[in-house]
């Protein structure tokens, strides 16, 4: 019977033990040895960038630039005298990097033509505040370090970064997550495009102050990673000194399984993606470990050798026709490996293709192989390839194509990745996709890419300075959580309250008025969330304007429930005065007596023509009629009581 890639894919998924997330339990993750930690990046809310005086937070469109600058990055030796793995890989890719500069938000510092100015002290104070909230050990002196990035995302080739605190802890409702460190650093460029050997960045975000909170791999299941991430973000926001909105907070998620390797999933834009991503990653590693076992059983890694033949111009498959160079490669003993399950919808062969794109700059599609789920290319081509390579039954083959100059790197890349399959899970960073899967991004860099920044002097942090900052810390997140619990505010609104940092406002209103915190929790957590979703077209609603709303109502002797009617208008027109909002919604003052005076007429209207009117329906109907008139003029629950008496 002939080999069926489709069948092999499904069978290998089954043998890997893959389960969809909703079927997985803690037992599943314990069996795989799920381990995960986070690196949460958060932009700070400062006027200026971290090492120059450019304004922070001014963004421009891709084609709105004043000048372009071209750079290439070369690896350099670390202070320990070694080259970094990523560095060498990035150098292999020979990318030409273009930076687009807009004069409004970038100066000669960003493009590395001026040395750094002293670190923004406003940003440092904010980073310290957050470090203290994380119960970190604060360093005695901040040393600015260069962390190499050869992908070009920073024109210098390194990011200036510095540790503010180490060894902290974050208390979640049901668990403590230990923190490794918190650093302050400059943000990187935003990528515009990356095609072939050309990568284009814009420099608007470059240099903005950022903190990075790194946790130990303490999370034991995907939901826990998500929860920890949320709490770190909430904690950052609780200071009111961080940026919010698209891209202001981003996280990298580290995942490994038993026998696997720490793999870093970069740039996860939404926390809600985390569970699916980490779930799939732990199974991807598990699948790679299975491949390792199979391969090592078949052949000794040291005697494995691939063969290739030049088939340029021989094949008819359309994408190959224009290719400068086409190679067919025989991968001994790789039958069943190429179509082995790796992630939902992806095979081992996709791991090869991903690396070809990134390392050898071959744009996808960049390869075809013997185990395509839908056979590619045509029969005649396949016969030619087989004739050229003479594969044995247990072998696999692939065909790659591209520019002549990229082919040597492409061959090395294929060989390297295939050899890694004998060892298990390669150390790498992966890019997250919205469907919860990931693709290869880079080789995982080591600690070897850190250098002292010779352009900056260390900044001492004396006890007095730290004490002063410590005086204005907000309370801990876990205390806020416990307070909300005590107030009986339902747990499903906490995320919204914390993410918008509305807790302090609730606290303040509770002190100033006699409105129950439970009411405020629902008001901010549900009603406001609903109103924002339906009536606002702003990205950043100024929540602060809601703070005086309840004292306004109190001063005007209006019932606080009127706030609910005002919300849609306030949310749509945040600059409108509360008085005008009242006019806009057509609010009129009525005394309790006037309102109650309408009850008999309404009751009569409801009962008209009914023999046995339903009391509850009648009650609800009358309340419905009076709600708008009564709201703000009297407590609706009082109205309800009085109505019952009159029924």
């Amino acid at each position: 019977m002939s080999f069926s890639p489709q069948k092999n894919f499904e069978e290998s998924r089954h043998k890997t033990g893959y389960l969809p997330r909703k079927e997985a339990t803690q037992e599943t993750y314990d069996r795989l040895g799920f381990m995960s930690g986070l690196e949460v990046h958060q932009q700070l809310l400062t006027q200026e960038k971290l090492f120059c005086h450019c304004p922070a937070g001014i963004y421009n469109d891709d084609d709105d630039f004043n000048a372009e600058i071209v750079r290439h990055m070369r690896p350099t030796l670390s202070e320990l005298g070694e080259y970094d793995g990523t560095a060498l890989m990035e150098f292999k890719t020979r990318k030409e990097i273009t930076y687009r500069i807009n004069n409004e938000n970038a100066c000669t510092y960003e493009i590395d033509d001026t040395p750094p100015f002293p670190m923004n002290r406003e940003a440092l104070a904010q980073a310290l505040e957050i470090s203290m909230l994380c119960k970190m050990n604060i360093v005695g002196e901040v040393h600015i370090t260069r962390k190499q990035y050869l992908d070009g995302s920073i024109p210098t080739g390194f990011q200036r970064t510095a540790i503010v605190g180490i060894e902290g802890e974050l208390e979640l409702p049901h668990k403590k997550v230990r923190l490794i460190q918190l650093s302050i650093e400059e943000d990187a460029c935003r990528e515009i495009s990356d095609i072939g050997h050309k990568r284009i960045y814009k420099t608007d975000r470059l240099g903005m102050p950022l903190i990075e909170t790194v946790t130990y791999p303490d999370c034991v299941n995907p939901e826990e990673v998500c929860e920890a991430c949320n709490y770190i973000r909430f904690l950052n926001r609780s200071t009111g000194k961080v940026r919010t909105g698209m891209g202001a907070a981003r996280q990298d998620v580290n995942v490994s399984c038993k026998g696997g390797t720490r793999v870093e999933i970069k740039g996860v834009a939404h926390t809600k993606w985390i569970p699916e991503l980490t779930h799939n990653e732990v199974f991807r590693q598990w699948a790679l470990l299975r491949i390792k076992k199979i391969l090592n059983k078949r052949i000794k890694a040291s005697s494995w050798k691939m063969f290739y033949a030049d088939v340029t111009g021989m094949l008819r498959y359309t994408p190959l026709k224009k290719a400068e160079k086409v190679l067919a490669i025989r991968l001994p003993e790789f039958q069943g490996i190429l179509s082995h399950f790796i992630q939902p919808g992806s095979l081992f062969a996709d791991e090869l293709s991903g690396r070809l794109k990134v390392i050898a700059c071959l744009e996808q599609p960049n390869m075809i192989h013997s185990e395509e789920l839908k056979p590619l290319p045509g029969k005649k081509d396949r016969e030619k390839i087989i004739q050229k390579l003479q594969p044995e039954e247990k072998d696999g083959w692939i065909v790659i194509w591209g520019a002549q100059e990229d082919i040597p790197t492409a061959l090395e890349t294929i060989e390297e990745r295939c050899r890694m399959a004998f060892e298990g899970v390669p150390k790498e960073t992966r890019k997250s996709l919205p469907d919860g899967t990931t693709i290869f991004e880079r080789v995982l860099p080591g600690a070897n890419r850190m250098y002292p920044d010779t352009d900056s002097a260390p900044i001492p942090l004396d006890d007095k300075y730290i004490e002063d900052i410590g005086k204005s810390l907000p309370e801990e997140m876990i205390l806020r959580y416990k307070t909300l619990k005590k107030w009986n505010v339902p747990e499903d609104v906490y995320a919204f309250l914390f993410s918008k940092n509305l807790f302090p406002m609730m606290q303040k209103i509770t002190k100033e008025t006699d409105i129950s915190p439970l009411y405020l929790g629902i008001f901010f957590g549900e009603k406001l969330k609903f109103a924002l979703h339906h009536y606002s077209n702003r990205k950043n609603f100024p929540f602060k304007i809601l703070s005086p709303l309840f004292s306004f109502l109190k001063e005007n002797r209006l019932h606080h429930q009127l706030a609910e009617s005002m919300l849609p208008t306030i949310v749509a027109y945040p600059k409108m005065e509360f008085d005008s909002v009242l006019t806009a919604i057509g609010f009129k003052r009525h005394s309790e007596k006037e309102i109650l005076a309408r009850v008999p007429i309404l009751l009569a209207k409801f009962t008209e023509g009914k023999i046995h009117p339903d009391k509850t329906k009648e009650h609800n109907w009358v309340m419905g009629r009076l709600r708008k008139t009564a709201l703000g003029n009297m407590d609706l629950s009082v109205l309800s009581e009085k109505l019952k008496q009159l029924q």
Partner: protein
Amino acid sequence: MDNDIFQGYKGDALTLLKKFQVRVWGTTRIETTRGHFEGTVLPRAENDDDQHIVLKIATGYNIGIDVKTVKKMKETGYHKANYKIPEKEFPITPGLPRVKLFGTGGTIASRLDYRTGAVIPAFSPGELYGAVPELADICNLETEKVFAVFSENMGPKQYIALAKAIGAEIKNGIDGIVIGHGTDTLHHTGAALTFMCQNLPVPVVLVGSQRSSDRPSSDAALNLMHAMKAAGHSDIAEVMVCMFGPTSDEYGLLHKGTRVRKMHSSYRSTFRTIGDTPLARISRKEIIPIKKHYNKRRADKNVKILPYFSEKVTMLYYYPGMHPDVLNAMIDKGYRGIIFVGTGLGHVNKELYPAIERAHAKGVHMFMTLQTLWGYVHMFVYDTGRDMMARGIIPTGNMLPEVAWVKLSWILGQTDDPQKVKEMMLTPVNDEITLREPYNGYLIYQGGVPEVEEFIRKVHK
């Protein structure tokens, strides 16, 4: 001994390290009032305070520990790091030109120094090859470390040593010479070598980098490749400075040693030919001449080495209201030559006249150059100019101030005869004075103007 074990530490920090028997490069656990810290103790930069200990923690970052917070320290291991690029022997390819690289120090050949926390010149030229293997495709390289000094410490002694070394190499039949040099005074050396090494049969190329080679975006590698290419393959047998044209990694420019000047403190494209165009544009692929006339490469070895330099020449940068005492002090200190850097067309105020007369009477050689850098000294336009010439100040055309200082120093190293000095000063060796300034010899684009904005948006500058 202390130096070795406690590199850079002093005062309180040193006392603390000694008290707990912790060495630099020792893996250490420190208990402080701010919690525990673990890592490797690193050397401390000499000019930093004595209140902190530097620690490299497991994640690769460095942090400082405040000595006042330390309760206890314990060394648990020791691992000394060596920062070193492997020195590789340069491969010889038959058919490629022989190029000699002279190392002098400066950013093109540098590494991090933990002691000072700064960049120091320490890469041997051989190590450079380890870092830039592409050089082997350009030429067969031989290297020699002539000396290692910072650019700002380059001076007469080094000029003379270099000139002699160049002479010796040419006699050995080298095809081209590259000199790695710090950038601050690259143009001074360019002028000095032009005067000291005349009738060159091969290119002599000065090169540096504006970003040290310890960073990925350094211009060092590309500058080196361009310089090797110019030295080995170009037919321009002059002393040249080879540095970035635009700040982008695109092409380099070859500037005459006498007309080039560093014009920005930190830009990569800092070197500009003043009052003229550069000699040529250079990339890894090709050399495109800009100037039609230049001294051509020859097969002979008839270089003239004139290694003279007087240290009795100074410069006077004039400012409004300058008192004559400054000039008098120079005279009294025995300076034999003074390069005035005057305003506008070459002016100083009347208050200086008596001092100028005094200098002239003492036989001090005085020449006028310009603060404007571009343009010619013209002392016939106003009475002031004529007054000064009458008092012995000689205009130097469009010679750059630094070049004039180098040239007068070189001349006074050979003669003190006023007539001879004047004649040598005003007879150009290699375009330090040009007869005409081309229209594109003065270009300072003004940002904000629409046509310039359009230009810089389209062209990588």
